[in-house]
């Protein structure tokens, strides 16, 4: 009981803070200085139409590299936590086999979902989306395969190779930016291209494609390490 009272007191305090914040909130009438810089200079600096993509890939590229690393660590820890010795509760009762419709439907839809994921990360500099969304969509295609056929053997080698090769290429592009252009992860190592076409904005589509592959591989390996315990 006393614990519950403490919880309520805590939440009430937090609620008061939130209330004060809410009452004092006033939307800015115009952009603040950093946002103004991004709004005015993104096109000349990076050539990207999607400013969020420019912020993620170029202006704060190092943060994104760190974040991808965090995801990689997460996937590795999940695999480690679940490795071996997990006594599942007795022999698993047999599942109902998946229906024919789901089988056929997934054979039809998996390529389309994968294509859409590729579209999302290759067009990240023009339309909403980018490496993280595209990676999540590709992992969803993987999830659909997994749901359709839980006993299927997925190539861990392929996933691990994709993951590490794209990670290495990402860092290599960052270093190339230091050697050829203004600094680490500078996207101007490739020509800027024409504003608004798919091969523009320098290295942003390339970097986003690598991020997409890496994130997709990481999520897929999380899904696999969770679901393969039952065999």
């Amino acid at each position, binding site marked *: 009981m006393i614990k519950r009272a403490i919880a309520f007191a805590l939440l009430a305090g937090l609620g008061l803070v939130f209330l004060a914040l809410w009452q004092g909130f006033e939307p800015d009438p115009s952009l603040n200085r950093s946002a103004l810089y991004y709004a005015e200079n993104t096109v000349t600096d990076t050539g990207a139409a999607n400013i969020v993509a420019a912020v993620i890939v170029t202006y704060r590229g190092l943060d994104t590299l760190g974040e991808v690393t965090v995801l990689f660590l997460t996937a590795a820890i999940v695999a480690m936590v679940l490795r071996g010795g997990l006594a599942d509760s007795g022999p698993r009762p047999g599942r109902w086999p998946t229906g024919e419709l789901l089988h056929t439907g997934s054979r039809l839809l998996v390529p389309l979902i994968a294509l*859409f994921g590729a579209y999302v990360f290759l067009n990240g500099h023009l339309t909403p989306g980018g490496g993280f969304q595209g990676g999540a*969509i590709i992992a969803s295609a993987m999830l659909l395969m997994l*749901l359709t056929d839980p006993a299927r053997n997925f190539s861990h080698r392929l996933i691990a190779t994709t993951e590490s090769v794209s990670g290495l290429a990402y860092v290599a592009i960052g270093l190339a930016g230091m050697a050829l252009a203004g600094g680490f992860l500078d996207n101007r190592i490739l020509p800027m291209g024409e504003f608004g076409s798919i091969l523009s904005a320098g290295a942003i589509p390339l970097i986003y494609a690598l991020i997409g592959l890496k994130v997709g591989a990481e999520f897929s390996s999380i899904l696999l390490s969770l679901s393969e315990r039952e065999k």
Partner: protein
Amino acid sequence: MADLLILAAAAMAGIAFLLALVRFLRGPTAVDRVIAFDVLTIVALTGIVLVALEEGRAVYLDVALVYALLSFLGVIVVARYLEDRAK
């Protein structure tokens, strides 16, 4: 005239949303809640199309595409779970 019709359409979508929400809250079995969730997803997709129309930005439709392609995954996940648990 057209604006008025669009406004009425938005109101209708809102009604559909609320009705599906009621089924989501009441639905006696999990299956009912899942089907209500499916309808809610579709209504949300309609809402996204309406927002894209109002703001006049075609890029918003990519989000609707994500829903059209991926929303059925959640339903399939729950369906597989229910089948598994019964066995």
